[in-house]
């Protein structure tokens, strides 16, 4: 019988015990401090405050971690600077992955863009770049996300909504019109493994057409099974094990052929926004990353070959210090996992690089201008936590896609943090705070505990199949909703300090008209002019590759080259793998 596989937590516990180096506080000083503290507590702190010494902040998407009234060195008596923090750019990377952090490289201002047809989105991208945006972040419309063509009956009425419509390489070409693909970094928000396998090849074919070698392309895709199988609500799903296989196929192919591209962005963001705590968000992403690396090892690859380019995507919500601590905590935990679970020596593999987007569900429809303040605090927490790139949500997002004015304000929010507040001059400014360090420790422990829970179920894909995450989400957000309704979670302008009179309305974005017709016409033209024999044989070859277990991406690439549409390619996946019905709990 095979030996029982040890969990990541067990491995870390074994390798990290007994290794305490040199605690910063000397025992004498701590002893004295302890006496002083007790003295202070009994004389200076009132009875009520002593009784309620620990209070749990109830906040949107919060982790419900109790907080003491005052933090001191006693909160973290074993604090060992070099072992727990290190300097920036140094193991365990708690203080940041680079020594000089934002002095060396500003955070990338990567605002999401995408609505209507490719032409409209191209205009908005140019507008954002012209105003100082430093990265492109393309969001696709509902049919594209769900992998149906614009002329599919299921797509009617939804083309160009919530993102930009893409059916084929032709649309990709229009989105990036006049944009030099070898000189920008592009995040393609292909949430799912399936649509990554379909849409990224379209981008590659576009580069081919423009004569740009793939090794000049920089950017990222998301490619995360969690989004396809848990966070998404859609009419058709392929089974988790096949979805995970496509996730890994994509990673393998992109790593081999597009060396500067980030082939996966473990997306905690959408999961948390769907309804989980900040702890679960990170635990799930780490469990998925661990599963991916195990699969890559099984496929015969070196850990570092993959790990050096892994990236994460987090959602910062309203509990300010929790958000700062969370990013620091997961950075240290990722380092430990890479170093001790996967035995890597490469610092790059130990770097938890991340993009963040301020929380969308925290935004209120009531008094929408308040959302500007909320998003600014979310963004500031991220910068204090040391993230690599940032999107700030717009105040009007509880109404529609942001107007140009609102999108610009989001970019300005980032620019003000970056240029006016001075916070980027000092690396990890909150490092060493008794409070932030204690919270960082607590959150790291909680994330590892949840990773352990997932691994004990049998790993991430098994946990998905069994509905563990689906259930957890339902419990979390139902509870959160109740706390909001009871006013336990306070939301200014909604259930707390409600305005007695209705405020004047804000401008709201209207979708451009006629996008669906234009998309259909362009797709119709493509269907006419393409070589149908080549199309059919590319689709057939893809189906065989799916069934034989070959990497799917060379085949989806061929499909893109000969003019297959997204819907046609997804249909092959559905035929080859069959459909899966995800569990719904409520």
């Amino acid at each position, binding site marked *: 019988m095979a030996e029982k596989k040890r969990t990541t937590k067990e491995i870390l516990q074994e390798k990290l015990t007994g290794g305490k180096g040199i605690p910063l506080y000397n025992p004498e000083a701590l002893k004295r401090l302890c006496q002083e503290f007790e003295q202070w507590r009994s004389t200076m702190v009132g009875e009520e405050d002593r009784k309620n010494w620990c209070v749990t902040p109830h906040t949107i998407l919060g982790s419900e971690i109790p907080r003491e009234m005052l933090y001191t060195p006693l909160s973290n008596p074993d604090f060992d600077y070099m072992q727990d923090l290190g300097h920036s750019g140094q193991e365990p990377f708690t203080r940041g992955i680079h020594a000089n952090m934002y002095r060396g490289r500003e955070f990338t201002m990567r605002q999401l863009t995408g609505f209507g047809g490719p032409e409209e989105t191209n205009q908005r991208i140019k507008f954002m770049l012209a105003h100082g945006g430093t990265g492109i972040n393309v969001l696709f419309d*509902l*049919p594209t*996300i*769900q992998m*149906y063509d614009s002329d599919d009956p*299921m*797509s*009617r*009425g*939804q083309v160009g*909504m*919530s993102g930009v419509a893409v059916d084929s390489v032709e649309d990709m070409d229009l989105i990036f019109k006049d944009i030099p693909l070898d000189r920008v970094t592009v995040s393609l928000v292909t949430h799912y493994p399936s649509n990554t396998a379909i849409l990224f090849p379209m981008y590659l074919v576009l580069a081919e057409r423009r004569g740009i070698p793939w090794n000049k392309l920089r950017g990222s895709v998301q490619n995360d099974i969690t989004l396809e199988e848990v*966070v*998404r*609500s*859609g*009419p058709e799903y392929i089974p988790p094990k096949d979805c995970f296989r496509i996730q890994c196929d994509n990673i393998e192919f992109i790593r081999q052929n597009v060396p500067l591209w980030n082939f996966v962005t473990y997306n905690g963001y959408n999961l948390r*926004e*769907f*309804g989980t705590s900040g702890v679960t968000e990170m635990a799930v992403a780490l469990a998925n990353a661990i599963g991916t690396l195990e699969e890559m090892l099984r496929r015969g690859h070196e850990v570092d070959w993959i790990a050096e380019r892994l990236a994460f995507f987090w959602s910062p919500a309203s509990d300010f210090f929790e958000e700062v601590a969370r990013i620091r905590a997961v950075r240290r935990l990722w380092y430990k996992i890479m170093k001790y679970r996967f035995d890597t020596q490469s610092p790059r593999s130990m770097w938890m690089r991340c993009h963040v987007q301020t929380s969308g*569900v925290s935004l*209120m*429809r*009531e008094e929408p201008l308040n959302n500007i303040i909320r998003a600014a605090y979310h963004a500031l927490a991220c910068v204090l936590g040391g993230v690599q790139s940032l999107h700030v949500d717009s105040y009007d997002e*509880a*109404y*529609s*896609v942001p107007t140009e004015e609102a999108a610009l304000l989001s970019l300005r929010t980032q620019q003000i943090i970056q240029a006016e507040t001075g916070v980027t001059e000092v690396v990890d400014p909150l490092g060493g705070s008794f409070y932030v360090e204690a919270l960082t420790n607590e959150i790291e422990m909680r994330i590892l505990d949840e990773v352990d829970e997932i691994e004990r179920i049998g790993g991430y894909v098994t946990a998905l199949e069994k509905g563990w995450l689906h259930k957890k989400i*339902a419990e979390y*957000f*139902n509870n959160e*909703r109740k706390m909001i*309704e009871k006013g336990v979670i306070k939301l200014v302008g*909604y259930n707390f300090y409600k305005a007695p009179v209705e405020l004047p*309305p804000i401008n*709201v*974005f*209207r*979708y451009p008209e006629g996008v669906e017709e234009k998309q259909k016409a362009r797709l119709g033209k493509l269907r006419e002019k393409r070589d149908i024999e080549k199309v059919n044989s590319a689709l057939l070859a893809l189906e065989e590759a799916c069934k034989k277990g070959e990497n799917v991406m060379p085949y989806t690439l061929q499909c893109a080259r000969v003019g297959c549409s997204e819907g046609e390619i997804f249909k092959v996946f559905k035929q080859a793998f069959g459909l899966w019905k995800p569990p*719904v709990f*409520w």
Partner: protein
Amino acid sequence: MSIPGVNVEPARRLERKMAAQIKVLLSKLGLDVHNRGLITVANELRDAGMEVIYIGNSFPKEIIKTAIQEDVDVVGVSSLGGAHLTLGGELIEMAKKEGLKERLALVIGGVFPPADGTKLKEIGFDGIFMPGATREEIVTSIRQIVSVKMDRPP
């Protein structure tokens, strides 16, 4: 016109009516990916004593078909992706065609520009719920709409 399914289990329908248990069908409208809100509503309506069927993503034709088969009192759809007017309009048309508009409460929730709330009312939705609608508002409003439609006390 005879509508298949409408009169199935008349006894059960009457029983439900007597017990004032409202039966609700909930669906995500079209391809919209955001279902957190609707699942929350499903939970709340169930907690409020209603019988709830949640079918995930569906389209007007299938939604109406299921509404007939399941003999529900309320159809609630959710749209955060922008298709509230197009697919929402289709849903209302479909309900009218099947002669259900008079006895079925049709409600919609999601993210829309404020002006569209009025439009949704005009095209025939009985209840419109924007972000921020409370459990209380949703439950009370559905009970009222149903009581008017079915001519029974809320």
